[in-house]
């Protein structure tokens, strides 16, 4: 059992204001009238998911902030070791979108500088309550040179896809590193920062 059964391990974080649906991205179950699941009472701390990308078996360890964002206590220890960050806002709540800039600053201050980021406009199933257009989401992502996607945790739109895309971006960065850290090669292969267009498979 000691043998390693995967190629790479990526630690990913969910960040954003309270109420944007971070916990729903991690936890989808809903209780019925008479029973409650034990799990929904305690809540999920993190998940491990396995994806295959370019023939590599990759383990994603995905963490929720567990409400720490309310007390502005998200600091270095939470970001430690994070290789990818999902920055989440709620398309029906203007303030959560405005706060994306604050979160980006927080990430710059506390996270590893080459952490891969992605912005998610969540709750895209609630079109009738939308106050933040998709274009504005795309614009802010472009401005900061990071990826963007609209998602719905409730309707399970783009969630899996968002994680695969973030993992793929990290894979791009780490490519070469595992092959005995040929530093010169990494420098050459590292791609410039850019916001790629939304991918066909996901929209």
């Amino acid at each position, binding site marked *: *059992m000691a043998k390693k*059964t995967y190629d790479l391990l990526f630690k990913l974080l969910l960040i954003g204001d309270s109420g944007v649906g971070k916990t729903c991205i991690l936890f*989808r179950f809903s209780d019925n009238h008479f*029973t*409650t699941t034990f799990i*929904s009472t305690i809540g*999920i701390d993190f998940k*491990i*998911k396995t994806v295959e990308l370019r023939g590599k078996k990759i383990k994603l360890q995905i963490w929720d902030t567990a409400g720490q964002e309310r007390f502005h206590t998200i600091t270095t220890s939470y970001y430690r070791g994070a290789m990818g960050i999902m920055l989440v806002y709620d398309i029906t709540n203007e303030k959560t979108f405005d706060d994306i800039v604050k979160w980006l600053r927080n990430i710059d201050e506390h996270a590893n500088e080459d952490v891969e980021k992605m912005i998610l406009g969540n709750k895209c199933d609630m079109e009738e309550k939308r106050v933040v257009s998709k274009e504005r989401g795309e614009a802010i992502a472009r401005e900061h040179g990071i990826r963007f996607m609209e998602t719905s945790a409730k309707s399970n739109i783009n969630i899996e896809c968002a994680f695969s895309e973030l993992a793929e971006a990290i894979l791009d960065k780490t490519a070469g590193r595992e092959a005995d850290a040929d530093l010169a090669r990494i420098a050459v292969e590292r791609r410039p920062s850019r916001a790629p267009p939304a991918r066909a498979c996901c929209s």
Partner: protein
Amino acid sequence: MSDADIKDAVENEYVEDGSNKLLVKCKFCGSKILERKSGKFVRKEIDLPLMEQDKRVEAKVQYEKIYQFFFVENMYTFENIGFTHTIDNCKYLSCADCDAGPVGYYDMDTKHSYVALSRVKHE
């Protein structure tokens, strides 16, 4: 059949060379939890909270005794799994896709995980 016979039958069907003979999956959604041969079979008696808790029984967690587990030394051995927040030095394990659980528990001291044979599907 006695309880002991049932236990033996389960072990014959799902255990081979001391580890899980079949894939371990979520009973409800089929999400893959463990690859074949990646959990070591162990017998131990643990009270595990029921998956469904009756809301009408106030403020009391309902448990059942479980005796058969697959032991997983390193959490990254799991294919897909969720970990709850910590209670009494333990995290409960749940399906990473549909959140059904507990399917087992994780000991914070030893960092070892245990998956209950009776709470998962073997395929």
